[in-house]
């Protein structure tokens, strides 16, 4: 086997689909995480954490065999296959069903921020490691719960600073009702085509008739009159109920009076097969992939031994940061410059500044700190606070006020 030239310098690179984050990027992501967690907490959602590693069995059990190819796997010492979690809904369902619900009962309001991992085609421009923030409302099957998570999702987009976000809401039951009118083998074939969003191929799979007409119209069933247009297309009870639920959900969300466009989209198809009822996604202008997605998954908790209705959503933080760049400046750095005999006083004054919340670095007066917004020099009499073009003396007990004034400028 030949060693390729690129292999020799591989140690410089990160693997495909994962990336380093520079201080400004991390600062922006942390700010966003902080805002979202704070928002979730104010809506009564408690943050939980689960391990990065889960058994492959857990994911297959929860999300179905279809996820298998999209997971990053490793083999444990005993031969068990472990996966890096691809999302947080299945781990939180496991956590809720096996730990929290038996102990506390429901409903549970849970929140998280966590890196998740998926295998992606090389060169597809999609990350293998990315961050999701989200909530799960477990143990409440009412329309009110659907409304709550959709309204919270819309508020989260606002808190994140996304401009002109729009939320599309659909319902898995509408499609289930349509598919129930087809022979079982045809329904399976159609489900497969819809999962690939291959609407153009439906004509080859379904016999001409009202079901085919309705299926082909799915991608157009969005916007203000979509519910009315959909009603005659799906006469079955399950589809009718789905449309009624959607009407109630939209009315409920409207009551919040959020400045975010929320509209019906019956062609919405989510990637995970555990979704059972209301589903939704949010988009920003000029972005091909959704920023946020979620919905109701009433069957999932039962798979982990504790039946409970549930709904929730996850936000892709990297996508949000791309759609809503936050140009906030980083925290200014204060340099405390010491001369040989003043070291002790320098580190003590630095401690006082750090206590007061200033980013503070102790440097020798000879070297200084090039990117310092403000320098506190140790002098015989006390201290001198210097900013660009200005300097004034300050005593130890007034140092924080002097530095604050210096940073705020004239």
């Amino acid at each position, binding site marked *: 086997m030949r060693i390729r030239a690129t292999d020799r310098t591989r140690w410089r690179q990160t693997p495909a689909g994962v990336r380093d984050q520079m201080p400004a990027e991390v600062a922006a992501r942390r700010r966003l995480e902080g805002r979202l967690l704070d928002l979730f907490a104010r809506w009564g959602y408690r943050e939980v954490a689960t391990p990065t590693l889960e058994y492959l069995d857990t994911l297959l059990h929860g999300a179905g065999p279809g996820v298998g190819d999209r997971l990053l796997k490793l083999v444990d010492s005993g031969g068990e296959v472990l996966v890096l979690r691809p999302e947080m809904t299945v781990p939180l369902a496991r956590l809720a069903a096996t730990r929290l619900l038996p102990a506390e009962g429901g409903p549970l309001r849970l929140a998280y921020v966590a890196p998740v991992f998926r295998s992606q*085609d090389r060169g*597809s*421009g999609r990350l293998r490691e990315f961050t999701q923030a989200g909530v799960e409302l477990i143990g409440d099957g009412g329309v009110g719960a659907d409304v709550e998570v959709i309204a919270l999702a819309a508020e989260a987009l606002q808190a994140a600073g996304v401009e002109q976000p*729009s939320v*599309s809401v659909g319902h898995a039951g509408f499609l289930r009702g349509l598919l129930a009118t087809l022979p079982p083998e045809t329904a399976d074939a159609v489900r497969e085509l819809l999962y*690939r*969003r*291959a*609407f*153009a*191929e439906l*004509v*080859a799979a379904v016999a001409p008739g009202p079901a085919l007409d309705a299926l082909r119209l799915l*991608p*157009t069933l*969005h*916007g203000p009159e979509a519910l009315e247009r959909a009603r005659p297309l799906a006469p079955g009870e399950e589809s009718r109920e789905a449309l009624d639920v959607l009407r109630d959900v939209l009315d409920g969300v409207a009551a919040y009076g959020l400045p975010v*466009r929320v*509209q019906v*989209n019956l*062609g*919405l198809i989510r990637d995970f097969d555990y979704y059972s009822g209301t589903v939704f*996604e949010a*988009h*920003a*202008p*000029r*972005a*091909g*992939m*959704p920023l946020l997605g979620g919905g109701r998954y009433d069957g999932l908790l039962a798979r982990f031994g504790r039946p409970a209705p549930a709904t929730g959503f996850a936000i892709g933080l990297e996508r949000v940061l791309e759609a809503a760049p936050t140009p906030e400046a980083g925290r200014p750095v204060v340099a405390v410059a010491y001369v040989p005999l003043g070291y002790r006083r320098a580190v003590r004054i630095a401690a006082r500044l750090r206590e007061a919340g200033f980013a503070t670095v102790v440097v020798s007066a000879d070297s200084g700190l090039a990117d310092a917004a403000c320098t506190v020099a140790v002098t015989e009499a006390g201290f001198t606070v210097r900013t660009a073009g200005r300097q004034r003396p300050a005593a130890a007990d007034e140092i924080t006020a002097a530095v604050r004034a210096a940073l705020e400028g004239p």
Partner: protein
Amino acid sequence: MDTLTIAVPSGRLLEDAVTLLRRTGLPLPGAGQDRRLLVECPGGVRVLVAKPTDLLTYVEQGAADVGIVGRDILLEQGRDVYELLDLGFGACRAVLAMPADRVETVWRPGRILRVATKYPRLTARYFEETARPVEIIVLYGSVELAPQVGLSDGIVDLVMTGRTLRDNRLQEVAEIARSSARLVANRGSLSRSARVAEFVARVEAHLAAEERPIHA
């Protein structure tokens, strides 16, 4: 008003794609006639010309709202886009072919077949479904050459008329997929942009008016 960005494929589908856009009433001065890859058109429409294999990346990532692409590429790449309409033109088939004089010896159940192709995933899926063993050799063009010089036993490639197969003394042994041009859209544009919805409706109305035969 939002700009509507339409991606059309360079190569064999380009002419038909531009003709279709014109017939649906889009003013497209110059699009597809010179070497410009991005053409701004009146009425807030942009047309970008992408290599067929790259086109879905532009659409999926939101750099284009909608695109025109062969079904062969959709099947090969498995991207996250809506495949909305069969546009009818650009019909072709992906077939498995091998030298006519060697079919008897190599196309036998259980024999590991070496297949040269530009479509490794499509090929792998076919052999998985038919439970035949295969070794795939990925080439980027003129795959007909491979079996003639002993690089492979056969090929999987697109055929339109079958002339290239005949000229290279290759015999079709199985049809793997049928293809034609498709209209695709990304997940965001379809639901949030009224212009995209309107464009799709216009193309669909045009197809209905032409009453193109819809094939499987």
